[in-house]
């Protein structure tokens, strides 16, 4: 049996794979890389593509990832997979959207804020009524 290396593939929302392997092939940004045991420390970005974990000659697990990071320590390979397709412009659009929502919220003082306020006031009124009623009952 050849030397093995520990492989962890995780995404922000779940653990995908964890185990020993002879070879890990990943789509690094500057070309596909194959990592075997005792590889030098290595850190790179991954492109969307296929990660293959070769456990032995018979067993190969393929995974599709939409990008991420790859870290290599002498005995551990860690793949941090992105959960969604990420690109600079998509991120930018998301940021703008979040800002727009905040501005909208600030300008629109009527809608939900009033509703929350009204709810709080209603709760207060109900409490007052209940105390009043208890007080009345006590005197009757």
């Amino acid at each position, binding site marked *: 049996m050849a030397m093995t290396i520990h492989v*962890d593939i*995780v*995404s*922000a*929302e*779940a*653990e995908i794979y*964890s185990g020993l392997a002879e070879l890990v092939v990943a789509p*690094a*940004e*500057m070309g596909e890389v194959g990592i075997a045991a005792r590889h*030098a*420390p*290595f*850190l*790179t*970005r991954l492109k969307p593509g296929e990660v293959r974990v070769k456990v032995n000659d018979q067993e190969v697990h393929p995974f599709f990832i939409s990008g991420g*990071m790859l*870290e290599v*320590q002498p005995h551990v390979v*860690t793949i*941090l997979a*992105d*959960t*969604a397709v*990420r690109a600079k412009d998509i*991120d*930018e*659009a*998301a*940021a*703008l*959207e*979040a*800002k727009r*929502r*905040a501005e909208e*919220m*600030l300008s629109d*003082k009527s809608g*939900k*804020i009033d509703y*929350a*306020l009204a*709810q709080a006031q209603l709760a207060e009124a109900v409490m007052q009524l209940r105390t009043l009623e208890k007080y009345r009952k006590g005197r009757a």
Partner: protein
Amino acid sequence: MAVGKEIRLKITSIKNTQKITRAMEMVAASKMRRTQERMQATRPYSRKIAQIIKHLAHANPEYKHPFTIERPVNRVGVILISSDRGLCGGLNANLFRLALRRMRGWNAEDKAVTLSTIGQKGTAFFSSIGANVVSQATKLGDRPHLQDIIGVIKTMVDEYSEGKIDELYVLYNEFLNTMTQKPRLVQLLPIRPEDIGEEQKGQWDYIYEPDAKEVLDQLLIRYVESIVFQGLVENNACEQAARMVAMKSASDNAGKLIKELQLIYNKARQAAITQEIAEIVGGAAAV
């Protein structure tokens, strides 16, 4: 019999309310289990990325990323994670109290505070008190995804890169157990690897591809995202747990109220019957 009609009506109405609170309790209980599972599922990623950051801190990179450099603090940014819905006890109120206390502290030190909010409750509250909210994300539901909060995180990280804020924090409820949730403030930027853990230093460095700057750029942003996301799912679990407890005590209170009212009702009814009998007996005696 006309006796105690109001009381009877009131009992019915409380019983209806109790049905609702009990249903909410059960829904929250089942959701809590699921959110807790999600909380567990996100842990490996944050643990792994924290480990890499730790390795990095002990490698000897020739390049120092701006995210790891501390600078004098004039402005502070906070990403505040709250729940979308209410009826979960003091969960959000406790969080806001901590936020306000810290904000007052920063203001006293002449530090301006910039907020980003995730969750409807926080957004509504901090907009209404006139805090400086620059971005927000709401209605994420019970299964939030990372891409829902990328926008919020990016605006704050950009503010940091542009020098508009000098420190970035995230504030959320920490899930200790079903009964206890505690608001927690975590510093995101600048990243202090000492906080993550100690390990012996070595004279080595990674091979970076294509180069250190680009790799670190992405890695550190992913790191910030993973902490915020972890906070979000944890806050979610807190929300369900708090709601379950709150609704349980509401149901219990309703039960107590019903018991009391039932007692009053029975007494009133018995009094009416006794009086009626007394009247009949009195009438018969008079004849």
